[in-house]
C-alpha cells in the first residue's frame, strides 16, 4: 500500500473510504486564504487574486503556514462572472472580490464563448495549479474550485431577477441557462485536472435552502449537478451554504462524492441520510470557532465533528480572512491526533 500521503488520505476520505486511511483528512477545499498568511508570505489581497506569483505563494501558504493537507484555488467566487463580462469590486486585504455589475439582461442573451477557459483569470488559476503540482509533486492534493451554476446565474443576471424568473419563466429555460453554465464549469475542471488538480469543489452558495425550495433543488439543480458529475472523472465535493438539511435526500442523488455542510447541518444526521452514498465534510464553525473562538474551542468542535463521523475535517464555510493562525492550525492538529471514528 505504500506510505500514506496527504493526497492519498484526502482522496480516500473525500470518496467515503476513510477507513482505508489512517485518520480523517484535514484538506480544506473551500477558501484557505487569511490575512495572517498574506502577511507571512507577502502576498496580500487583492493582488494575490490577479498576480500569478503572489497567487502561487498564497495558495502554497495553506500548507506552508497553516499545515492544511492540500491546496485550493482560487480564493474568490468571481472568476466565472468576470470571464463572462461582469465588473468586479476587487476588495482589499481582508475582503474577497465581489461581483459589481451583471453581464446579461435576459436568459436568452446568455452566450458562453467557446474559448471561455482562456478568458479572464481561468489561465492564471490553471497555471498556478500546474506549478503547485510541479513543486509539490504527488504528495499533496490540489482542489480546483468552481462557482456553481446557480451562483454564477445570480452573478451574471442579478440574483433577484433570476429568482423571479424561476417562477415566471418555463423551467426548461432556467435549466437550459444553468446547463450552459455547467458546461463552462466542466470545461474549467477538465483543464484543471489536466494541469494537475486532483479534486473538484463546486461551491454553489446561492443555491441555499435559505432561498430555494427543496423541490426546486430536486427538480432543477440535481439534474444539472448530475450532468456535471457524469462528465468529470475526479472526486467532487459540493458546498452549499446555510441549513441544507432539507436538501440531504436529494444531494444523495447528485452523483458527487462529498457534501460540504455549513454549521446549521448536523453532521451525524447528514451521515445518516447520505449513508454510503456520499462523504460528509466540514465540521468546524467558521464564526464561533475559527474567527472568534480559541484553539481550545476549535479543537473541541473538531473532535465533536470527528466523533459524529465527519469524513474530512474543514471549516464549515469559506474561512473569514481575519481568522487567527493559531485557531486555523488547531483544526489541523485536531485531525492529526485523532483516528477516524
Amino acid at each position, binding site marked *: 500500500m505504500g506510505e500514506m500521503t496527504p493526497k492519498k488520505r484526502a482522496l480516500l476520505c473525500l470518496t467515503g473510504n476513510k477507513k482505508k486511511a489512517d485518520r480523517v483528512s484535514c484538506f480544506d477545499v473551500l477558501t484557505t486564504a487569511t490575512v495572517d498568511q498574506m502577511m507571512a508570505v507577502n502576498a496580500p489581497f487583492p493582488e494575490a487574486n490577479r498576480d500569478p506569483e503572489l497567487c502561487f505563494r498564497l495558495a502554497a501558504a495553506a500548507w506552508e503556514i497553516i499545515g492544511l493537507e492540500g491546496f485550493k484555488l482560487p480564493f474568490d467566487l468571481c472568476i466565472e462572472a468576470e470571464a463572462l463580462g461582469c465588473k468586479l*469590486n476587487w*476588495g482589499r486585504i*481582508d*475582503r*474577497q472580490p*465581489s*461581483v*459589481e455589475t451583471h453581464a446579461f439582461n435576459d436568459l436568452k442573451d446568455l452566450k458562453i464563448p467557446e474559448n471561455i477557459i482562456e478568458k479572464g483569470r481561468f489561465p492564471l488559476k490553471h497555471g498556478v495549479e500546474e506549478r503547485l503540482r510541479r513543486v509539490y509533486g504527488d504528495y499533496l492534493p490540489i482542489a480546483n474550485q468552481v462557482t456553481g451554476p446557480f451562483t454564477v446565474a445570480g452573478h451574471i443576471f442579478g*440574483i*433577484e431577477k433570476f*429568482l*423571479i424568473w*424561476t*417562477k*415566471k419563466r418555463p423551467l426548461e429555460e432556467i435549466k437550459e441557462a444553468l446547463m450552459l453554465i455547467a458546461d463552462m464549469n466542466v470545461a474549467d475542471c477538465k483543464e484543471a485536472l489536466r494541469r494537475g488538480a486532483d479534486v473538484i469543489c463546486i461551491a454553489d452558495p446561492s443555491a*441555499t435552502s*435559505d*432561498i*430555494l*425550495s427543496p423541490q*426546486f433543488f430536486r427538480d432543477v439543480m440535481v439534474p444539472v449537478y448530475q450532468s456535471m458529475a457524469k462528465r468529470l472523472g475526479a472526486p467532487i465535493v459540493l458546498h452549499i*451554504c*446555510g441549513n441544507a438539511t432539507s436538501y440531504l435526500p436529494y444531494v444523495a442523488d447528485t452523483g458527487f462524492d462529498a457534501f460540504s455542510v455549513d*454549521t446549521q447541518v448536523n453532521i451525524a444526521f447528514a451521515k445518516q441520510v447520505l449513508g454510503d452514498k456520499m462523504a460528509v465534510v466540514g465540521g468546524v464553525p*467558521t*464564526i*464561533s470557532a475559527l*474567527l*472568534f473562538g480559541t484553539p481550545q474551542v476549535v479543537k473541541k468542535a473538531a473532535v465533536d465533528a470527528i466523533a459524529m463521523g465527519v469524513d474530512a475535517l474543514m471549516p464549515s*464555510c*469559506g474561512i*473569514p*480572512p*481575519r481568522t487567527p493562525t493559531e485557531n486555523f492550525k488547531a483544526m489541523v492538529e485536531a485531525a492529526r491526533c485523532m483516528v477516524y471514528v
Partner: protein
Amino acid sequence: MATKEEIINGLKTAIVNGDEEAAAKWAKEAIAAGLDAYELVTKYGGEAMAIVNQKYEKKEYFVPEVLCAANALNVAVDILTPYMKVDKTTVPATVVLGVVEGDIHDIGKNLVKIMLSAAGFNVIDLGKDVPLQKFLEKAKEVKADVVGMSALMSTTMPGMKKVISMFQEAGVRNKVKVIVGGGPVTEEWALSIGADARPHDASAAVGVVKQLVEKLRSERGESW
C-alpha cells in the same frame, strides 16, 4: 362593475400569487370604483403580504415567491399612489436598513424591507456594501427608531459590531434599537455584540420590530 369586496379579494389574491397583471387590473378597478387607495395599500396590501409572510414561515413559500408577491404589490402601489390621501396624524416608526460594508448579498435585507414596508413602517434602505459610518449618519438624520444590519458573509459580520460601537461612542445607543440578521449571524453572537435582537427571518422581523419600537418609546425619554 365589481363590488368592493371582489376588488379587495382580487387584489389580495393577485399579490399572494405574485401575479402582476392581475394586481394591475384590480388596482385600476379600484380606482374606477372610487375605493380608498390609502386603505387598499396599507390595510389590504399589508394583509396580503402578511399571508405571504405566513406561507414563507411555514415553508410553503420560498424567496422567489416572496419576491414575486412584492413585485405584484409594487405594481398596485404605483397605480394607486396618485390617488392616495395620506393620513398624517400617525407617525410610523422609522427603520434604517442596510447590508454592512464588504457584503453585497442583499436578498435578506430586501425581504425585511418588503415585510416592514408592508406592515406600515417607514423604511430607509441604505442598500448594500454600506460604509459603516453611514448607519450612524443616516439614523441621526432621519431620527431612526430602529437600525437593521445584515451580512451574509462571515467575513463581513464584524462590521456590525463596529457600527454598534459607533452608536455607543457617539452617546446615542439608547436612541435606537438595533437588529441584525443574515445567514451566519446567530442570536448568541448578536446579543454578544450588543444588538437588541436577531429575528430569525424576514417575517419574524415585523413582530420583533413592533415590540422593539414599543419598548423604545416607553423607555426613551427624548427622541433624537
